[in-house]
């Protein structure tokens, strides 16, 4: 069936609001991932559709336990490796 991102209508998720913290970025690294992704798409390294696809391909359990910008960072590094810009070893810091 569908990928894990396709949650519309799914049951079992918790209550939504009210939210005390509605800030778009909770720390500096999130803003950096946001800016980095915009720059890489802007450079034509990958498209927005490829970026969404890379998020959707995450293993379901990991998708659900990751924060929003953790998903983004996962997709950015996945695409950088798949496009041959960086090796997986480089991303891992080996």
């Amino acid at each position, binding site marked *: *069936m*569908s990928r894990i991102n*396709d949650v*519309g*209508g799914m049951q079992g998720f918790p209550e939504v609001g009210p939210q005390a913290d509605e800030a778009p970025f909770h720390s500096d690294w999130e803003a950096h991932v946001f800016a980095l992704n915009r720059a890489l798409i802007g450079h034509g390294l990958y*498209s927005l*559709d*490829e970026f*969404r*696809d890379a998020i*959707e391909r995450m293993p379901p359990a990991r998708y659900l336990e990751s924060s929003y910008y953790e998903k983004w960072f996962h997709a950015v590094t996945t695409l950088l490796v798949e496009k041959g810009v960086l090796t997986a070893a480089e991303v891992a810091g080996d």
Partner: protein
Amino acid sequence: MTERFAPGERVRTSRVDPSHHTRLPRYARGAVGTVVEIQGSYPLPDDRARGVASEPEPVYTVRFTARELFGGGEHSVTVDVWQTHLRRCDDAGNGNP
């Protein structure tokens, strides 16, 4: 690609279940709704996400009743659907994709 549907027309969404990226949500597959408006033409993301060349095609805002989508509820939901994923729906409900 030319526009196959007009506002007010009843349409049925495809039952596709692709292994690749798509923008047709699972909850709105195989459902009957009414075209609200035509948004313009855009390449199919199912193709773009795979690096496949794609001609722009019409995208429609389609309104569904919650009853049609979820078997209950009084509200309605609109979903934006590429023409590839829509079929004309006759009144007998046999809009086979």
